[in-house]
């Protein structure tokens, strides 16, 4: 009798120990994410510190030339930032109208059966690997655009921007559509009951009510565009410059990082450390965009 009670107690203790270990393991898995963030910041800052010991922060943010691989070396990040910004703006010019237009069509005009078919097909656009888009930009879009803009050269911001825009259309359309579908039907009925037509219901009631979600989709698209690498590496060029013409070749922050990674810069050299300083600038840019986006989305949030 005593023996049985003792083994039961031992078993319970073992069980509790096992439960405890398992919970610790699961917790460790969850903590990996925090570790990742810290590691990213750690690596970027650590190596960037080495960079900024040799190049002043002021030069980094104010110099308008970026030529770390040539003599004389200039380390102004502005041309790279501008290249990123220009390609992003072009991509938004494509993605916002087509994405939002698609969302309005699917949410307000299309019958349920059509929507169920079209939505996943649009999602395919988001699943195509970016190398494929880069290939498309270089081998199809650029020659095609040259029919309209003969001054377009082989590597240019316009093709990369347009193709990037196509890639992020589903991001804008899916999230905006979800936001619009979440608007209660009672709002639409109230508007119809006043004699509104379909497009008035959609544009004057549904879209303003869903604005927070729509803006969130824009922000997501922007941060995706800013961080995109392959399309710009393959199609936008590798010549950092501050120019207003989308027909010329430029270089984005991500494009530069790619270029230098494929090069022969030795570990520990100044050229090598530019990977991290530009990487840090990129990381900060995405962070700021996300923060601004969250603030804007919250401001337009309508409860219902």
């Amino acid at each position, binding site marked *: 009798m005593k023996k049985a009670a003792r083994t039961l107690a031992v078993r319970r203790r073992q069980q509790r120990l096992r439960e405890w270990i398992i919970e610790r393991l699961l917790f460790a898995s969850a903590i990996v994410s925090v570790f990742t963030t810290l590691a990213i910041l750690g690596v970027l800052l650590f190596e960037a510190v080495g960079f900024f010991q040799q190049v002043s922060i002021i030069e980094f943010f104010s110099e308008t030339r970026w030529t770390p691989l040539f003599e004389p070396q200039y380390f102004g990040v502005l041309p790279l930032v501008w290249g990123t910004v220009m390609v992003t703006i072009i991509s938004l010019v494509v993605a916002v109208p087509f994405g939002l237009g698609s969302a309005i069509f699917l949410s307000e005009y299309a*019958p349920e059966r059509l929507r169920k078919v079209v939505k996943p097909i649009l999602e395919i656009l988001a699943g195509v690997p970016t190398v494929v888009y880069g290939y498309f930009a270089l081998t199809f879009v650029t020659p095609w655009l040259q029919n309209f803009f003969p001054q377009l050269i082989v590597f240019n911001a316009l093709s990369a921007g347009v193709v990037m825009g196509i890639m992020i259309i589903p991001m804008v359309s899916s999230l905006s559509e979800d936001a619009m579908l979440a608007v209660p039907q009672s709002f639409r009925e109230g508007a119809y009951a006043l004699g509104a037509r379909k497009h008035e219901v959609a544009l004057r009631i549904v879209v303003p009510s869903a604005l927070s979600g729509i803006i969130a989709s824009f922000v997501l698209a922007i941060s995706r565009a800013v961080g995109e690498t392959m399309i710009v590496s393959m199609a936008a060029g590798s010549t950092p410059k501050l120019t207003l013409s989308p027909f010329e070749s430029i270089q984005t922050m991500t494009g530069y990082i790619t270029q230098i990674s494929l090069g022969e810069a030795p570990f520990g050299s100044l050229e090598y450390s530019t990977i991290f300083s530009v990487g840090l600038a990129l990381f900060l840019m995405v962070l700021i965009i996300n923060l601004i986006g969250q603030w804007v989305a919250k401001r337009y949030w309508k409860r219902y």
Partner: protein
Amino acid sequence: MVSDVKIDVRNLSVWFGSNHVLKNIKIGFRPNAVTAVMGPSGCGKTTLIRAINRLNELIIGSRTTGEIYIDKEDIYSKETSVFELRRRVGMVFQKPNPFPISIYDNVAFGPRIHGVSDDKELQGIVERSLKEAALWDEVHDRLQDSALDLSGGQQQRLIIARALSVDPEIILMDEPCSALDPMATSKIEALMRKLAEKYTVIIVTHNMQQAARVSDYTVFMYVGEVVEYGITKNVFENPQNELTEKYITGEFG
């Protein structure tokens, strides 16, 4: 056809899919009066009033046959503009559904889409509508506030003001007080009587006492058909139909 009928419903039948909801409705609603439509759940009263502003058409799979004449014009004919119809026929819903915008913009929405763009004119319309809906005194100093900040009863009066803003002739109300407390309810009931002086008011209610309090005429419906229709006092005190009597005495609900 009696000469003072505003809305003449003839042989109206409505299906939702294979569900035959309204069966051959024949009824003439009088102008400048409050008509209550009552009956147990599922009898089709909401579907009936939604047929008057053709809001049933928003539901996929709905089918309507028959005619409804408003002032001798069949609103289901091909020549009728459904948008103009809905301007003439206003609707107040069971649960207040103000748009998530300001009080002012809620009331101004209707006039704006129907072509009023002059600011002074809009201000005048908003003030007039809110006064007519007995809400002006409570909100005149905070018209830019969100409509969602108002109480339930205030929101419902806002919806009434919104319906009035486009100068309708008929006002349909679908159980407008079911989500409101008794004080708000009595305010709205008083408003209904006042509105009947100028408009044709039809209310759907499952509250018999409300029908008795508020309406001049009462329609009793049962499973998609009109069972009885007459002056309210007569319907309640001297029902012609056995079903009506059973409903009124509470034998079923």
